[in-house]
């Protein structure tokens, strides 16, 4: 039976692992390759790296880090942040990423999704959707959640899947950072609207939140701080989720 995945997300800047404190100061937290290798050994089903830096120098440092990760990380690695065309997607895949994630670029130019899928296959293309509640629905945001686009998030999810996205990474802007659980209604709405796998993101505070997210129909749950601050080692969290009857790789 296909297992539900638990995915730690790491913020990477200039090839280094960083953690934000209230979006203001970023702390250098070491080598993202070391962290990814540790998480993989602890039972992570997949790793996501989010490149939060702009600029060529950071991009090159990111590629070098992806190359090193491909040598040691023996679970899939998805890398996103700053991919605006097929050229950057190709660079990441050749460096050793298994999937690339795009967010803002396809909101400005949806055809990018089809270009990436045709070139590299749908299984490589993750479309990240940052959604915030508005008027009883959800609105898709661009630029790391800062720019509302006027697009309905569920309609955008459907369009992204039709264009060839192999997976959707759905983050609730309202829940992100609250540690009070995922936006389950958003997840249900999107899981119902599309047939591609959905990764839940934003709001995990405890294992029960991950269980609830996976029960909406989501194929995977992503979290950051609950893993990074050491509150829940991944293997322990997965055991708790499995104890609730969900198919989990132990």
């Amino acid at each position: 039976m296909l297992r539900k995945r638990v995915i730690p997300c790491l913020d990477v800047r200039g090839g280094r692992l960083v953690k934000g404190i209230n979006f203001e100061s970023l702390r250098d937290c070491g080598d993202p390759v070391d962290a990814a290798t540790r998480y993989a050994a602890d039972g992570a089903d997949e790793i996501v790296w989010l490149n939060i830096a702009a600029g060529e120098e950071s991009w090159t440092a990111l590629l070098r880090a992806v190359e090193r990760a491909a040598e040691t990380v023996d679970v899939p690695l998805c890398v996103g942040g700053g991919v605006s065309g097929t050229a950057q997607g190709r660079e990441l895949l050749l460096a050793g990423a298994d999937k690339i994630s795009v967010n803002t670029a396809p909101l400005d130019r949806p055809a990018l999704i089809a270009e990436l899928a045709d070139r590299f296959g749908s299984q490589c293309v993750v479309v990240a959707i940052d959604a915030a509640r508005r008027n009883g629905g959800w609105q898709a945001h661009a630029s790391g959640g800062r720019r509302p686009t006027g697009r309905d998030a569920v309609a955008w999810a459907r369009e992204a899947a039709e264009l060839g996205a192999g997976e959707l990474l759905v983050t609730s802007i309202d829940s992100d950072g609250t540690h009070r659980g995922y936006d389950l209604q958003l997840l249900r709405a999107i899981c119902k609207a599309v047939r591609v796998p959905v990764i839940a993101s934003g709001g995990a505070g405890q294992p029960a939140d991950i269980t609830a997210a996976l029960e909406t129909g989501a194929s995977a749950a992503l979290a950051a701080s609950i893993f990074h601050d050491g509150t829940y080692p991944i293997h322990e969290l997965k055991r708790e989720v499995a104890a609730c009857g969900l198919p989990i790789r132990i």
Partner: protein
Amino acid sequence: MIDYGAGNLRSLRAAFERLGATVQVSGDPAVVAGAERLVLPGVGAAAPAMAALRSRGLDRTLGASTAPLMGVCLGMQLLFGHSDEGNVDGLGLLAGNVTAIDWAERVPHMGWNDVVGDGPPAVCYFAHSFAVDCDDLLVAARTSIDGRQVPAVVRSGRLSGVQFHPEKSASDGRRMLERWLAA
């Protein structure tokens, strides 16, 4: 390891190197013809992959070779005949076709799933939207998608194929590669 311009070869290469194998990545038919063992990787779509193999003459090299050959993911699908993905003919080294798994609840079939067959039970990482449809005699292990069985490992003489990504399947994947190298 056959390089025909497909994407990520680095992690597959590293997985073999961690097991002590010496890996040469090459798209040169002369180098491929002289290899002790061959790995046909595959990321991307069937039609461009077959076009790339044919343009380098690698389809003939692989057909004529007597070395053990393992296809990985798309590389496994390319060992067979017709593929519905891009409506293209594969290498035709094994009898069978490749069809869409559009009957599954969610496509692609993405994530960790059981591999049950002639080896020890394993849980491996899959990422595919098409699957091989072939005679049971070729199927060494299966996985189950929404209650339907699809080939996860195929084997016939020197040829074998894995639908999952052993290089991304943690220790279970490592053991699969180990067994292939030892066989």
